[in-house]
Structure formats: C-alpha cells, structure tokens
C-alpha cells in the first residue's frame, strides 16, 4: 500500500517534470484564479468586519444632558435606563472623557482641538443596545426625561450600512462561487489535455494489466501537487498584496470608517488553510473527473 503510494508519488513528479509546459500552465491557471479569489475574500471579510464595527458603534444611543443636570441625577437616570428592555448597558460619559475620545478620533489633527478655550461638549449617558429594534422606543423615552437636552440614535444610518454591506457580501459570494466553478473547469480541462496526451499510455497500461488505481494514482498525486504548489504561490502573493494594501489603505480606512482593516496576520493564517484545502481538492477532483472516461474497463 505504502509502496505503491510512494511509486505513484515518484511517477507523479517524473511526469510533472517531463510535461513541464503543462504543469506550468496548470499551476499558472489555478494560481491566477486563487489570487482573484483571495482579493474578493479580502473584500468580503473586511466589509463584514466593518459592518460589525459600525453596528457596535452606532448600536448606541447618546443621551446628552443639560449642563445643569448633576452627576447624581445622571446616576439615577442610568439606573432607570438599565431596567428597560433592549438595553445592555448604560454608562456616564463626562465632557472631559468625550473630548479625549474626540482627540483620539481626530488623530493627527487633534491639535486643532487644543485651540478651544472651553469644552463645548455636553455630559452624556451612552446606552448600549442589546436589540437594535427597540432603539426607537428607548430613544423616544430618553428624550422625555427631565435634564436631558438631546438624544441621538443613528438607526437609519446603521440600517443603510447593513444593507449596503449585505449587497457587497452577496455580490462577493456570487463572484467567489463563479471563480471556484471556473477554476475547476479550467483545471479539469488542463488535466484532460494531459490525460489525452497520455491516452496511448493509459491504453497500454490497461493491456499490460494495470489496475485503475495504478493508472489513476500518479495523476491523482500530480493534481494534488499542482494544487498545493498553486495554493502556496497564491497565499504568498496574496499575503504580500494584503500587507501592502493595509499599509496604503489602512489610514484612509481608519479616517473614513474609524476602524482598522482586518489584521493581516489573522487573515493570512486563515487563508493558508482555506487555500491549501481548496488547492488540494481542485487538483484531486480535477484529475479524477477528467480521467473517469478513460478508466472504464
């Protein structure tokens, strides 16, 4: 068993080396597909991450308090807010804290805020929602409480972001499915060409009494090896691309959405496994499918 597997692997390498052109073409085709795939994967993962962040950020109600409202009154409000359905948490945010957060968000431009002689921000209570849908009722109730100046709840904005991200996600999914199908077709075609070039060899093998697995074995491993190489190359390339992308677009993204892109390390470790599995299965399936016709007794 092990002996014949070793024989198959050895033959696979020999064949790949003898048919260098075909091997290169297959690897190139699969790698190209996987690269495009990875770009859509990056897009999809980042959009997902972004939406989550936006949901968390805007899944809050900001209750701005009048300046004359005391801290004690605020604490009372917090107790009553926390009792409401759909409220996960409520915290007091002093105007000083709010200013600090502002400065962080403004980043390099924070020095502009230093020019202010007096903090114009109000004290606030920040309510985190456990259920976005009950946000409206809570927001309306908060507005009626005494000592409250204004209530801000970005329900519509959140809804829009979620809708847009859903569209992008679905689009990416369609494109990814499409690419996987295309790459399987391309691979099985490439292997079909190899098999056709070796039809003579297969016929002879069958005459001599080779079992189907003896014939299939080397091509099976050939498919797997080609898949593995392609996966390795495309993971390497796409990692490079993503790391660069993060460098170039990271700051922009932060400024626009006040969130970072998904960490390259995290994404790449995941992509390694996905692509290895994908490469192996594309190669193995491709070779099995395209050989089937020739192996009927």
């Amino acid at each position, binding site marked *: 068993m092990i002996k*014949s597997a070793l024989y198959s692997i050895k033959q696979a390498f020999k064949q790949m080396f*003898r048919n260098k052109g075909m091997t290169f073409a297959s690897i190139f085709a699969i790698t190209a597909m996987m690269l495009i795939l990875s770009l859509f994967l990056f897009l999809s993962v980042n959009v997902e991450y972004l939406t989550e962040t936006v949901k968390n950020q805007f899944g809050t109600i900001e209750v701005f308090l009048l300046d004359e409202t005391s801290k004690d009154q605020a604490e009372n409000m917090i107790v009553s807010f926390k009792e409401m359905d759909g409220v996960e948490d409520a915290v007091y945010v002093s105007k000083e804290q709010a200013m600090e957060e502002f400065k962080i968000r403004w980043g390099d431009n924070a020095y502009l805020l230093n020019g202010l002689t007096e903090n114009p921000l109000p004290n606030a209570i920040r309510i985190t929602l456990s259920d976005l849908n009950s946000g409206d009722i809570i927001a309306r109730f908060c507005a009626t409480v005494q000592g409250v100046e204004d209530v801000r709840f970005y329900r519509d904005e959140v809804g829009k972001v979620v809708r847009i991200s859903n569209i992008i996600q679905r689009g990416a999914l369609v494109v990814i499915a499409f690419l996987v199908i295309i790459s399987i077709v391309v691979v099985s075609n490439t292997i079909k060409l190899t098999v056709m070039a070796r039809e003579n*060899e297969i016929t*002879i*093998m*069958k*005459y*001599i*009494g080779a*079992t189907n697995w003896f014939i299939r074995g080397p091509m099976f491993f050939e498919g797997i090896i080609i898949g593995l190489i392609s996966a390795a190359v495309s993971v390497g390339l796409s990692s490079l691309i993503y790391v660069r992308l993060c460098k170039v677009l990271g700051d922009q993204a932060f400024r626009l959405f006040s969130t970072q892109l998904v960490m390259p390390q995290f994404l790449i470790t995941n992509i390694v496994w996905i692509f290895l599995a994908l490469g192996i299965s594309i190669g193995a399936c491709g070779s099995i499918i395209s050989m089937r016709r020739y192996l009927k007794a």
Partner: protein
Amino acid sequence: MIDFKHVTKEYGDTVALEDATIHIDQGDFVFLVGPTGAGKSTFIKLISKELEPDSGEIIVAGKELSKMSNREIPIHRRDIGMVFQDFKLLDNKTVFENVAFAMEIVHCSRRTINRQVPQMLSVMGIEDKANNFPQELSAGEQQRVAIARAIINNPRILIADEPTGNLDPDTAWEIMELINTINRRGTTVVMVTHAKDIVNRMGKRVVAIDRGRIVRDNRGGEYGYDD
C-alpha cells in the same frame, strides 16, 4: 487454456462473431486468419475481456470471463501478453523503462527489475539498446521490445495481432522465430495474421474466420486462400 462455447457478438446489425466454439490447449500455437473485418479482432478482444460477448461462454486459463468482476480484469490481463502491429511502445520511455513498466505494474522490486530486464533484452537480442528511445530503433527492434514487455511477467498466453504487419520479410521471420521459441517454452500463442508465407511455412494450427463464423480449423494447416 482458451475455450469459446457458442459465443456470439454483434455490433448493432453486423455480426462480428456467430456461434463460435473453439478449444485451444495449453501450449498450442494458433494462427487466426481471414479477411479484414471477419471477426479476428473481436475474437482476441473477447479473450482479453475488452469486449463482452452477447451470448455464449468464454473460459480463459480456467476462469469464466462473464463471472469476472471489473476488479479482476487487470489480474486476468497479466495472464495474457499482447503484441500489436504498431508495437504500442511508450515513446517517452527508454527501451529499459518500457519493459520495466510491465514489471512495475505488478509491483516487482527494483532489484528484480534490474536483474530481469537486461536478461530479457539479451534474449531478444537488443541488450545494447536498453537506453535508447523507441524512435531510435528499427521496426524489428521495436517489435522485439514489445515482445519483451509482453512476456516479461511470464504470461500463460501470448496474443499477437499482426505482429509482422509492419516488418519486411526477413525481419518478420526473425520475429516469428522468437515467438516460436516462446511457444516452445510452454506459452500458448494466438496470432492474427495476413502473412500467407509465414502461415504456410510454420505448419501450425490454422483457424479461419469468415463473416463471423469459424469456417476452418486444422492442424498443420495452410493459409488457404488469396487475399
């Protein structure tokens, strides 16, 4: 060794073999003659189970072919050495590799292969061509490689489909002498041929097939008709 009992094989409307009954003993040497399209190829394809008969029973080397599972077909074919008119050698493998290939299929060890292949090549008289590729060989030499490959695993039956068809008369005779030697070692030989001189000179059993029927079967027979 080979038994056909009332075997019929049809392709659509054409009858390739009709009610054929024949018994071939172990060690027999049989020439299969007849016009093109008479059913000779069908006959040998039925032996190697490349084709299934429509009716009748075929027993080869003690095994009834219709009861054989797909899994057993490769094992069955290892009992049969095949030689073809167009040699069917692998062009991208050397002479040595072409012969060794047949042994790799039955999982022989490297050592056995390295010992037996040169021996076989020298029996065939082509030991000096071991590292050449088939394209660099003459037609006669290529057929010797093919025969070496066919018998290296000691099959009990050798089937030759017009083995001399592409050879000049002298080379054809050398090949026939080789096949005769193989037969004398005990291998059953079934040879399809159109070579009248060879059949007449060898004086072996001759089976004539015409329009799917076995029309003649006699020992020490002659080719018997003009093409």
